[in-house]
């Protein structure tokens, strides 16, 4: 098939992906309001790698990045460094990789469900891409500046290329360098692929080279396995495992309730729309009916394996850690939708589908672009861009910034685009990088020092104290005669951060 024919055949799908790209890019730098600390730390470390070849702690080309003591697999950071090279360090540039990743995942989903004959109608193929792109789970995760979506893209590449074991195992192996969840999931999915599609002995020879390549790619992991950094987010079975595991299949959690963590959810929306419950149930039924077929066994396996890393981690219901569940869940929903279309076969399905689609888009717009920036600004660390600007405008003033409830140092580094070389020189280096799990969040950033406010000492200095209303309460302001010089409020008018000049410091002298 020539490229022109291929283009014509896939024009609608490509159009949907293009529209998805535009939709995901809409107000990317403004919504979510603020840059979450996980985004800032990835962005700044990518910037640091680009400028100096070292991370914020001065480590030369680390495999895992220490960040806040989490030792996150670093492939995403290096990819982001390339993007920053092209677009500069900004909110847009750190989030664009996730957009592209999610659009690619949508294309892969469409290709997978149609290519494996899970669905037979080509229109359903396009619908698969569209529904994934507008699903709340994908929309939220596709507009963040950290590694989860990129890691998922690599994992999904490994899944959809199951017929080409070399590429499949390569991408699965690479995904372990992109995300924590994939570190556990990639091997399990590899075993699943072998167990379902290559169980005959005469097929094992074809797996030798792919397995060798995958293991070769894992050499850095094997070496670092003997360091504490590898096991930082070690998952272990907890008493609550079964309950946590089951929660990822609870219709209430999938179709109604938001993730309880404010930064991980869109207000008033679950990970899928409520109406998707119906095709999901129908899809599960189809899965059960056709469970003897290998491709359906594969989907069942993916469905059961995907929430395992999230359930094993001692964290209640994390839609971020369970992001791999998005792919098999969408497959089930799409299979269910096709079943409904082929069984019902009524003229009103099309207008009903259009109404449901429009309703979903309205609810997504309302929840994501109206309510989220207003109500979740604090959760997304809103306010530090304004603080960075204030600090930049007062280069002669000394600042003490409280870090009791957040990690402001990385926000300031990000928004100030602070020279990494200077930051590495001003702050103590980290020795025995992969063994040093400690993290304090205290930093020197030019004329600002980030640490807890020490009232006994700081009141005797000519400094500006910065903190949230809990760190610097109204009572303390009155008691110590502090003079307000700046504040920042969220879109609802709640004060997030305040800055006060000390006025009694001369008395100490």
């Amino acid at each position, binding site marked *: 098939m020539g490229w022109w024919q291929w283009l014509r055949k896939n024009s609608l799908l490509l159009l949907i992906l293009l529209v998805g790209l535009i939709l995901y890019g809409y107000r990317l730098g403004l919504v979510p309001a603020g840059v979450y600390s996980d985004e800032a730390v990835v962005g700044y470390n990518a910037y640091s790698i680009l400028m100096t070849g070292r991370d914020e702690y001065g480590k030369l080309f680390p495999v895992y990045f220490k960040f806040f003591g989490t030792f996150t697999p670093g492939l995403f950071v290096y990819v982001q460094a390339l993007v920053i090279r092209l677009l500069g360090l900004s909110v847009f540039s750190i989030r664009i990789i996730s957009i592209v990743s999610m659009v690619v995942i949508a294309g892969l989903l469409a290709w997978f469900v149609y290519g494996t004959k899970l669905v037979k109608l080509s229109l359903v193929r396009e619908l698969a891409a569209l529904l994934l792109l507008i699903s709340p789970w994908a929309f939220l995760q596709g507009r963040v500046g950290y590694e989860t979506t990129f890691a998922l893209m690599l994992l999904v590449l490994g899944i959809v290329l199951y017929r080409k074991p070399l590429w499949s195992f390569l991408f699965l192996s690479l995904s372990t360098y992109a995300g924590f969840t994939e570190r556990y999931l990639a091997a399990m999915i590899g075993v699943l692929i072998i167990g379902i599609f290559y169980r005959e002995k005469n097929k094992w020879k074809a797996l030798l080279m792919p397995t060798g390549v995958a293991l070769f790619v894992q050499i850095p992991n094997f070496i670092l396995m003997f360091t504490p950094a590898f096991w930082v987010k070690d998952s272990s079975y907890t008493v609550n495992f079964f309950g946590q595991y089951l929660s990822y299949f*609870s219709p209430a959690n999938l179709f*109604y309730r938001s993730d309880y963590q404010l930064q991980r959810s869109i207000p008033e929306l679950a990970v899928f729309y409520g109406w998707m419950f119906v095709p999901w149930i129908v899809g599960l*039924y189809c899965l059960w009916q056709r469970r003897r077929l290998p491709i359906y066994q594969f989907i069942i396996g993916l469905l059961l394996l995907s929430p395992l890393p999230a359930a094993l981690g001692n964290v209640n219901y994390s839609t971020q850690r369970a992001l791999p569940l998005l792919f098999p869940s969408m497959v089930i929903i799409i299979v269910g939708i096709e079943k409904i279309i082929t069984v019902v076969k009524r003229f009103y399905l099309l207008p009903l589908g259009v109404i449901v689609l429009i309703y979903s888009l309205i609810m997504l717009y309302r929840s994501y672009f109206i309510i989220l920036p207003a109500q979740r600004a604090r959760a997304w660390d809103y306010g530090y861009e304004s603080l960075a600007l204030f600090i930049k405008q007062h280069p002669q003033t000394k600042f003490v910034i409280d870090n009791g409830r957040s990690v402001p140092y990385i926000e300031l580094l990000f928004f100030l685009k602070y020279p990494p070389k200077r930051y590495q020189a001003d702050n103590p280096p980290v020795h025995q990088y992969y063994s040093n799990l400690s993290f304090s969040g205290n930093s020197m950033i030019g004329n600002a020092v980030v640490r807890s406010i020490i009232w006994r000492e700081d009141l005797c200095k000519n400094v500006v104290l910065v903190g949230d209303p809990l760190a610097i309460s109204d009572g303390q302001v009155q008691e110590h005669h502090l003079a307000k010089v700046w504040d920042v409020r969220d879109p609802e008018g709640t004060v997030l951060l305040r800055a006060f000049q000390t006025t009694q410091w001369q008395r100490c002298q």
Partner: protein
Amino acid sequence: MHKISLLHGIVCGVSILLIGLQIALRPRAPLFFQSKIAVIEEQRRMNDYPTYLYRLAHIIEERPESRILRQIKHNFFLLFDLSHSIDYALIFTLIGFFELIKTRSFGVMGISLLLPVIVLTILGTDQPRGNFCLYPFIALSTYYGVVAVVKKK
């Protein structure tokens, strides 16, 4: 065949009885009830909309139909909240549900599942003695699920 019909008949009869009891023991008129927290949250969302979208805000947040729809969603999905129940027999219940669909037992499903779901969606799920009108269906589908699994072995 007769045994199955008898079983289905018993399940339907018990379901109807329990539905009646559930309605009789209902705590309040749930679809039209808005808690104080819901009112505050609704007002908060209204304030988040820009002024040029106030009409949309009114339709989505304040209209009685929207409030009822929200309550229906709340009641409906809390019926299927697995987070609060570690039911080790759940897999058999699900398999049994699929087996019932396969055998086209829509009559018994309509009376023992659909009707209680409709009733509980309207009444709400925070019933003083639990959502017992669903128990006959859960028992029946679990039985079917166990039979399906055992027969396969």
